């Protein structure tokens, strides 16, 4: 080879190496670049210090709610709502089992999607957290001083309660809406007869009377899939907006068949008008079978059957409901803090359409209708649209607001969050999420006064974000700083279940109201005991009631004889402690349910049916004291026909 060829070869190889090197360093540095050095100090909550916000994440298919601290990402608690929780006996203890009762019987699981904080004057007030149950349509209320589920209301005439439990600015109503249209009332018919036969309901549930949640009325609507909702606020207070898709009314292969129409609808419901009509006698009472379960004063769940519900049709009440055309298979509907703009995330659309409330009111007054669907006027798109945000990412879903004039929308397909300016509809920033973000949450982001400091991206795909744990991975979430002009990624943390949505509130609003113990003198459980002197075992035929106390570190009684095979035994365990963070547990060998976890001053009951004669140990399951290992007892079970008398004691 000639020298010039060799030189050319060498230069060529050198060039290839350089280009390859530059190319390699170009990929995969986005992630490192967006983490600024001070992110760690922004999320570090030193030992002994507390987070700024409580974040309530829905559990999705877990059926529960998880509570996390922001900005640290600490997991604080799992609150069982729709699913049994063997860890603390929720759904297993006699006092809590009725919470999961429905018209189908006891159901130990559901799918919980959207938490919603109670509001006063359009701002979260820290009283309650509501959440929906999808599979067996229900809504639940969690008390935010005990972080316990206190009430569950089943929704009649419903299938798939997805667009729920969005709340009005003063918690007058929260809504339920049907993802799956069904025959109303239910009956046997061919599925192919969906069109014209299957219908949907938009339910308005009274939400500001704890213990009295009730369906005030349901609006019967055309058989579309109703997806999400948000309440109007400020000028639009009095209205509720629901997205719908599948206006094609397909019942099979919706993936294709529900993606045909160019536009579906946002349903705008004037609930104040509906209230008026119902009060004036419009609509009718329809027979229905559904349950209302609530914790009574004795902290025992009661399950009450309800037998009718008020149903109103659009033709029964004029000016109650309108459809706003919205591209294309919209998912989220979000109302900006001023109450003027209604943002819909059309998941197959290429833009984010923003409707204007004032234009909508004008269009109604001008009767700018393009058509009517089953008695519901459809407003003209051009008459209600305020603007369209372009270049908003692929697959826009949900929008929240920072209260500083900007909106943030998730784009599922392009796996990013896009920040845009309200009014100019210009995208000003975008940040990748890892991966495929569904909902996002800004504390107060759906209220009249968002706390615009943090944003959480709730993702659907985790893949390589954390140490892998077999095929099933925890869903990832990212904490993003939105206090400045540009968004900054701060933290990446796994979540429990599948958080579809979340709500957050400044810790100061609720942390000093937390219940630490239950006062023993206020315990109204009929099987409660006030002191060890009241402990006893009583037999009523085949039923035995054990009035058991726990205190560090013994049970009273801890030796019980005289049980018989086949007895229905109820252990009513009262924790006599009145000290902070001293729960006691209770478990007995062979019990076919779970343990009990009993808080100070509380009484909880476990049912046990011994199947064979013998000696059954029981013990405290929660490490309560230095002598926790000594906190145990024995139960003697004799054959069915034995004459061993009932006796019980602790010590000599």
């Amino acid at each position, binding site marked *: 080879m000639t020298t010039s060829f060799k030189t050319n070869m060498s230069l060529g190889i050198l060039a290839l190496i350089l280009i390859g090197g530059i190319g390699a360093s170009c990929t995969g540095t986005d992630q490192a670049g967006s983490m600024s050095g001070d992110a760690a100090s922004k999320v570090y909550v030193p030992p002994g210090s507390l987070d700024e916000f409580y974040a309530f994440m829905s559990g999705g298919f877990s059926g529960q709610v998880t509570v996390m601290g922001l900005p640290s990402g600490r997991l604080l608690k799992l609150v069982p709502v729709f699913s049994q929780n063997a860890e603390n006996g929720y759904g297993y203890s006699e006092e809590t089992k009725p919470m999961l009762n429905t018209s189908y019987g006891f159901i130990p699981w559901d799918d919980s999607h959207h938490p919603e904080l109670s509001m006063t004057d359009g701002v979260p007030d820290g009283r309650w957290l509501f959440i929906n149950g999808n599979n067996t349509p229900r809504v639940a209320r969690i008390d935010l001083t005990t972080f316990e589920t206190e009430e569950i209301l089943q929704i009649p005439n419903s299938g798939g309660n997805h667009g729920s439990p969005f709340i009005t600015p003063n918690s007058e109503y929260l809504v339920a809406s049907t993802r799956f249209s069904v025959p109303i009332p239910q009956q046997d018919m061919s599925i192919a007869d969906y069109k014209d036969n299957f219908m949907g309901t938009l339910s308005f549930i009274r939400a500001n009377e704890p213990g009295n949640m009730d369906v005030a009325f349901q609006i019967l609507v055309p058989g579309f899939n109703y997806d999400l909702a948000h309440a109007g606020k400020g000028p639009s207070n009095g209205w509720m907006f629901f997205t719908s898709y599948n206006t094609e009314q397909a019942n099979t292969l919706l993936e294709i068949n529900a993606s045909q129409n160019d536009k579906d609808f946002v349903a705008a419901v004037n609930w104040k008008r509906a209230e008026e009509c119902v009060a004036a006698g419009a609509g009718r009472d329809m027979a229905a079978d559904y349950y209302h379960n609530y914790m009574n004063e004795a902290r025992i769940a009661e399950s009450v059957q309800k037998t009718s519900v008020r149903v109103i049709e659009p033709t029964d009440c004029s000016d109650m409901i309108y459809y706003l055309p919205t591209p294309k298979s919209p998912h989220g509907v979000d109302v900006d803090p001023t109450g003027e703009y209604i943002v819909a995330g059309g998941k197959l659309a290429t833009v984010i359409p923003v409707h204007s409330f004032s234009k909508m009111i004008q269009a109604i007054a001008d009767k700018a209708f393009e058509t009517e669907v089953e008695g519901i006027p459809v407003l003209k798109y051009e008459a209600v649209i305020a603007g369209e945000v372009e270049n908003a990412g692929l697959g826009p879903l949900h929008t929240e607001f920072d209260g500083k004039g900007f909106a943030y929308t998730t784009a599922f397909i392009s796996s990013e969050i896009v920040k845009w300016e309200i009014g100019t509809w210009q995208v000003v920033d975008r940040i990748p999420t890892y991966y495929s973000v569904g909902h996002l949450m800004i504390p107060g982001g759906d209220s009249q006064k968002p706390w615009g400091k943090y944003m959480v991206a709730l993702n659907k795909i985790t893949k390589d974000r954390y140490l892998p744990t077999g095929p099933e991975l925890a869903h990832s979430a990212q904490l993003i700083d939105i206090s400045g002009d540009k968004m900054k990624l701060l933290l990446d943390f796994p979540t429990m279940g599948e958080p579809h949505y979340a709500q957050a509130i400044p810790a100061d609003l609720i942390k000093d109201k937390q219940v630490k*113990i239950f006062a023993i003198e206020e315990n109204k459980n009929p099987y409660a005991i006030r002191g060890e002197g009241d402990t006893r075992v009583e037999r009523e035929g085949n039923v035995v009631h054990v009035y058991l106390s726990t205190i560090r570190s013994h049970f009273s009684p801890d030796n019980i004889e005289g049980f018989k095979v086949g007895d229905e035994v109820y252990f009513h365990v009262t924790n006599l*402690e*009145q*000290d902070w963070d001293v729960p006691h547990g209770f478990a007995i060998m062979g019990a076919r349910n779970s343990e009990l976890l009993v808080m100070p001053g509380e009484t909880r009951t476990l049912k046990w049916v011994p199947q064979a004669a013998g000696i059954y140990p029981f013990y405290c399951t929660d490490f309560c004291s230095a002598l926790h290992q000594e906190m145990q007892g024995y139960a003697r079970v004799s054959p069915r026909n034995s004459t061993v008398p009932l006796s019980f004691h602790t010590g000599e």
Partner: protein
Amino acid sequence: MDKRSRILLAVASLTLLLMYVFPIWRITLDAPQYPEGLGMYIHINNITGQSKHDLTNINNLNHYIGMKRIEPESIPELKMMPWIVGFVIVLGLAGAASGKKSLLYAWTILFILISIVGLVDFYLWEYDYGHNLDQVHAIIKIPGMNYQPPLIGSKQLLNFVARSWPFVGGWAAFVSMGIGLWVTVSNLRMRKPNQVVV
């Protein structure tokens, strides 16, 4: 007595009224697992917890070491103290009203004696509770160990730091005695030679 002494004697007596309003003494217990603290107040006629359930919880914790339950109803001093302090107040006010130096001196001497007796009694009470343990039922038995809290100051008792100090009512008593002593001494200094104490 001159007018200033009489006023000061009255003030000293009235200061003792604070003992009826505020706790006299406070014993606090600090341990790693009690970041919120535990404590008890000794009032003129009662013993209560610093937080609502503290006394119950202190008694429950004490069962591990075999210490007697602190039951205010069974402590006779708590029934006597309101009367004793009341007598001292009345005596002082009588002295201030009458202006007799003899009452002033008697008041001061009595007050000092009562205080000494009170502190000795408190020490003996603490000794009794800290030493006379139920050896049969005690769970934690450490040979030679006693759980007598300090009369004044702090002391480590197992995982707890026990601190014992006067509280507002107790400081009021010290202030009152201070005023009384000062008035007494200044009156003693004012005595002319050969003057009979009237």
